[in-house]
C-alpha cells in the first residue's frame, strides 16, 4: 500500500508539464513539509519505478518522468526530430556548459573565430543557454550559462555530470591559455624534443 503523500507527489510529478523541484512540490501540497522530506519521498518513488518502462529522473534538482534510453528504438518515430545543431552551435554550447559563466569574447578566444549572433540565438531559443548577468570588466560584457532545460534535454543530473568535466579540469584544459601558458613554460623542453624527433 502506497501512502497518500507518496501517491500525491507521484501524481504531481506525472501530471506536470515541467520538471518540479522539492520546493514546488511542497508549495503545492500546502503542507508543513521540508524540501528534504519531499526529496526523500521522491527518491522512494524513483526507486519504485527503477527498472520499469517509466523512470523518474533528477535534472538540476528538478524531477520528471521519462522512458528509459534503452527503449529508444521502440519509441522513436519519424516526427521525433530533435533540433539539429550546427557544428558552431554545438561547440558554443559545449564551451558555455564547461566554462560557464562565459562571455562571447571568451567563447571566441577558444574557437579562434567570431561567433555569429545567430548561433547564440539558436541556443537561447532552445532555452539551453541564458544570459547570467555581466562580467565586471571594462565593457561589462554579457555572460552566459546553461539552464535547467539544458540539463533536462541532455539527461544530466547536474553540471558535474558533464562528460569528462573532471578530466578536463584536472588537465587544465578549462583554464585560460594565459594561465596554462605560465604553468607550461617548464615543459618547453618537451616540445622542442618533439620537434627535433
Amino acid at each position, binding site marked *: 500500500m502506497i501512502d497518500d503523500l507518496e501517491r500525491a507527489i507521484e501524481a504531481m510529478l506525472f*501530471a506536470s*508539464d515541467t520538471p518540479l523541484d522539492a520546493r514546488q512540490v511542497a508549495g503545492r501540497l500546502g503542507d508543513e513539509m521540508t524540501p528534504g522530506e519531499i526529496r526523500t519521498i521522491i527518491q522512494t518513488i524513483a526507486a519504485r519505478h527503477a527498472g520499469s518502462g517509466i523512470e523518474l529522473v533528477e535534472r538540476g534538482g528538478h524531477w520528471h518522468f521519462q522512458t528509459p*534510453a534503452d527503449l529508444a528504438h521502440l519509441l522513436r518515430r519519424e516526427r521525433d526530430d530533435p533540433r539539429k*545543431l550546427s557544428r558552431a552551435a554545438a561547440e558554443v*554550447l559545449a564551451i558555455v556548459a564547461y566554462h560557464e559563466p562565459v562571455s562571447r569574447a571568451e567563447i571566441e578566444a577558444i*574557437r579562434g573565430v567570431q561567433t555569429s549572433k545567430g548561433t547564440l540565438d539558436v541556443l537561447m531559443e532552445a532555452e539551453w543557454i541564458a544570459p547570467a548577468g555581466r562580467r565586471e570588466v571594462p565593457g561589462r560584457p554579457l555572460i552566459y550559462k546553461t539552464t535547467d532545460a539544458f540539463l533536462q534535454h541532455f*539527461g544530466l543530473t547536474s553540471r558535474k555530470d558533464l562528460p569528462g568535466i573532471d578530466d578536463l579540469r584536472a588537465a587544465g584544459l578549462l583554464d585560460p591559455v594565459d594561465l596554462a601558458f605560465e604553468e607550461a613554460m617548464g615543459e618547453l623542453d618537451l616540445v622542442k624534443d618533439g*620537434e627535433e624527433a
Partner: protein
Amino acid sequence: MEELPLDFEIVPAAPERDDALQLSLESWEGPLDLLLTLARSQKVDLKQISILGLVEQYLTFIAEARELKLEVAADYLVMAAWLAYLKSALLLPKDPLEDPSPDELALRLQLRLQRLAAMREAAARLLARDRVGRDVFLRVKPEGLRDIKVRRWDASLYDLLSAYGQVKLRSEPVVHMVSRRPVITLDAALHHLQRMIGVKLDWAELSDFLPADYDGPLRRSAIASSFVAALELARQGRVDLKQEGAFEPLYLKAAGA
C-alpha cells in the same frame, strides 16, 4: 583521446595530400579549426605535435588553395602570415633577447589547439548523450498543474455605509446655510436708544449711547443701526440731532429737553 563522431554534421576528414585540394575552405570554422584538423593528420597527441610541421602543412594548404583560385578569407591569410613569421623565427638561430620567444609563441598555439580540441570532443560527447525526444521520451500531453484563481470580492461595512452616505449626500437638495454674524438689529437699537435718551438730558454723542463692551464687527453694526434708529426717532419728533459739519460727531438729546 578518442574522437567521437558528431551526429549532426560530417566532420571534414583530415585532408590527405591528394584530396586536400578537393576541400573548400568553407568546411572549417576559422583558421584555428583548419589547424586543428591538420594537426590531427599527424596522428599524435596534441602535446607531442610538431608545430613546425603543422606550420608547413598550413602554409602548403593555403598556397594550394590560392593556386586553385579558391577564395581564401582574410583571417586564414592573417594566420598564414603569422605562421610564416613563426616558422622563420623557429628556424633562425635563437635570439635570447626576443620576447616573446618563438618557442613561447609555438607553445601558445599548441595550448589553443588543445583547448579547441577539448571542446570539440566535449560537444560530440554531449550530443551523443541520451537526449529528450531522440532517446528518451516524455509524456506528450501531461494534464499539467494549474492554479485557478478564484476571485474573492472584499469590502468592509464602513465602505458600504460611507458609499451610501455619499449617495444620500449627492441626492439631497442643496441648501445654502449662511452662518449668523453678530449684529445689532434696528429694533434692538431703537429700543436701546429710547431707553438711554430718557437718562441723558443734555446733548450727547451717538457713540456714548452704545454699550462699552461692544467691539469689532458688533460695534460697527451697533453704530449703523443706532444711526438709523436716531434718524427714525428724529422723524417721529422724539429726539433733536445736531452736527457741526460733514463727518463730524453726531449729537442727540431728547426733543424739547
